[in-house]
């Protein structure tokens, strides 16, 4: 029996991706097999690589008292899309909470001058205004203030598990009654700082990435934002809202193993998958699709494959898994939220997207690596998996509707 006060549902999904603004736009692009990863040279002098960029982002008007970083701009556009998606006007969200993850914050607004001669940098016209968006908390404020939303605001930063973690914590907050509705998700732009950082770690594939392939060479960075409108089923029912999906389970763990590398056996991730299934009260046999973290780095993908072997051991059939980072790269703090949106898309359409460029998959008998054509089947339950630097893992399980 469903407890409508303890059931968290998704009543809107807003997306800004390299495909454009909107879930439909992303879905059409991905189902057509279009890859947004492209050679890039202009992100900083000397950079040559492959990224996926958002073009034609509708920008917020700035004045003498406000300046928005690209992280803010992406999040605000996604939040606008999410609210519009519900069919309700802005006043319906006045008491809502805002929980938005990011890792970049306002790093897009500053440059090396801030470290070389801070006082001179701050005295340059406009820089005090630019730097105000630096703290990673600013994104939640920018969204809240832009739409006049006055519920609790929270920014999350858990490296590449940020977006999924924001959704998990927002679900907890709804169960606590902290707000009637929460806009939850993540946002991150491309910027020289992070691009240079991943480049220095030799984690970037110079060509479009090949997650889970034996010959994978690393990841590509992308940018974007996804915001989910979350509420309890009781609230959604009272408002006669269109329930797009049910957030059946969520969990967070940490590997406690290394600052950048995952635990080789994927133990922390396997635990996280198990905990999310316990919360959802489902078995491994009931999950029919996993949207993987699947960065394409040698260490991540093997640890993740091992985690699936452990977590889904005993399943009647191999677990279907794909990495949609092969379409538009790794969007860091937005990745978990964008992939939650893709998982919801899969649950609603029954279309399981393949991993692009997966030619020679990692040997993993318990996993059905989706590749080639889009697979179509009824999909009552699907899982989205995220991991990040520092060993954090977050798993979300979405279902097609209230039971």
């Amino acid at each position, binding site marked *: 029996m469903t407890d409508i006060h303890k059931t968290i549902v998704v009543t809107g999904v807003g997306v800004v991706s390299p495909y454009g603004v909107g879930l439909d736009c992303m879905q059409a692009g991905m189902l057509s097999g279009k890859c947004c990863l492209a050679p890039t040279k202009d992100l900083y002098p000397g950079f040559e690589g492959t990224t996926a960029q958002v073009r034609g982002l509708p920008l917020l008007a700035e004045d003498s008292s406000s300046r928005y970083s690209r992280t803010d701009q992406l999040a605000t556009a996604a939040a606008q899309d999410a609210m519009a998606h519900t069919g309700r006007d802005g006043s319906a969200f006045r008491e809502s909470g805002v929980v938005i993850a990011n*890792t970049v914050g306002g790093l897009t607004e500053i440059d090396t001058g801030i470290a070389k001669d*801070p006082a001179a940098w701050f005295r340059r016209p406009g820089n005090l205004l630019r730097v105000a968006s630096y703290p990673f908390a600013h994104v*939640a404020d920018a969204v809240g203030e832009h739409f006049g939303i006055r519920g609790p605001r*929270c920014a*999350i930063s858990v490296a590449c598990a940020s977006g999924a973690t924001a959704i998990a*914590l927002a679900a907890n907050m709804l169960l606590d009654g902290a707000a009637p509705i929460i806009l939850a998700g993540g946002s991150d732009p491309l910027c020289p700082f992070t691009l240079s950082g991943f*480049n220095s770690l030799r984690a970037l594939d110079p060509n479009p990435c090949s997650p889970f392939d034996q010959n994978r060479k690393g990841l590509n960075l992308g940018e974007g934002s996804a915001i989910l409108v979350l509420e309890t089923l009781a609230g959604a029912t009272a408002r006669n809202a269109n329930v797009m999906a049910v957030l059946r389970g969520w969990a967070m763990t940490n590997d*406690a193993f290394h600052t950048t590398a995952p635990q080789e056996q994927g133990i922390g991730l396997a635990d996280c998958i198990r905990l999310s299934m316990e919360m959802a009260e489902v078995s491994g046999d009931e999950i029919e699709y996993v949207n993987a973290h699947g960065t394409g780095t040698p260490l991540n993908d093997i640890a993740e494959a091992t985690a699936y072997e452990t977590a889904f051991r005993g399943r009647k059939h191999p677990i279907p898994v794909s990495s949609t980072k092969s379409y538009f790269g790794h969007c860091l703090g937005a990745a978990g939220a964008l992939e939650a949106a893709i998982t919801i898309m899969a649950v609603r359409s029954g279309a399981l997207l393949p991993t692009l460029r997966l030619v020679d998959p990692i040997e993993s008998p318990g996993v059905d690596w989706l590749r080639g054509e889009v697979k179509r089947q009824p999909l009552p339950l699907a899982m989205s998996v995220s991991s990040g630097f520092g060993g*954090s893992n977050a798993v979300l399980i979405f279902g097609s509707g209230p039971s």
Partner: protein
Amino acid sequence: MTPNLAPVIITGVGSVSPYGPLAGLIPQSPLEPTTITAWTTAGLRRAFLVPAFRPASVVPGLKTRRLDRLSAWALVASALAIKDAGIDLNQVDRSRVAVIFATAFGCVELTEAFYLSAAANGWNGTDPSTFPETLPSTPASHVSLFHGLRGPNVTVSNKDFAGENALMQAASLLRHGQADLAIVLAGDTLSQSLYSWYDVAAVLSPACYNSDPVPEAGGFIPSEGVAALVMESSGRGDIRSGARSYARLCSGRWAAGGQPAEMIRQMLDGSVPSLTVCSGNGAPCATSPTTALAREISGDGAVIISPQTFALGLAGTGALFHLILALSSRPVHGQALFLATAGHSGFAALLLELLAI
């Protein structure tokens, strides 16, 4: 809507602050800002600074050479709080221990260092060992890694109520059975760029430029440090042998707008706190909006603890220090309202039951 949290108990306190590294409460003693010497300044510049110390001398075996000071202090403060709580981590299921960290600015020193490496060598020549240490979530990751804690690990922020936010997220994880024990941390470090920001923005107190006392002069004195609390679900904390209980967190609420007095009364659900601890915006206590709101809720007879200057210097992450300082100086037992306001950014309120230590 009133979020009535199942009570959780604060059983351990640790900190790295201008008082130095400490396990337990902070002794009541006056604190003066000290002169900045870590970088060249144009004339006298002062702040509440953490005195230099060797982390390994406080926590044996701790290696912090390549870490941002924020990570190093988070490690030290967490170890001191766990020690204060009397917890032997070997006796604990570490997969059930969460780490919740609040920061406004993250690892600013190594972020500056990374920018400097880009300035010196170009963006293609940056230092790979520095980059992972610049992430806002890195201090929390180090805490999990050092102590072997495999539960949820989350870094949160909020412009004005980051510390309160961390406390409520931790309480929520405990309440929903997603952890049995949580290490809650909040803090920031003061770097050259951050201080320059305040300086150029003209928001600093005259006390930052002048060693003579300047009463009621406005502005604020920046500070630095990391505070840590151990929080346990009430069942566990009550029965654990040797557990010290500082306070019970009963409920909490924060919002960016609305009618704070009405929402807080709803949260209190008839409770009448005998003590209000003000944190927040740095205005002189007698005229601050926080105090006015406290009087509106609790009446003129309530005991009000003013914001503490050094904790005010931590922007949005001072809440845990406000709480520790209030616990250190509390004039009464019983229920306490922990209250912060921040102009148009709203309020945060926690209802605590102060316990006999």
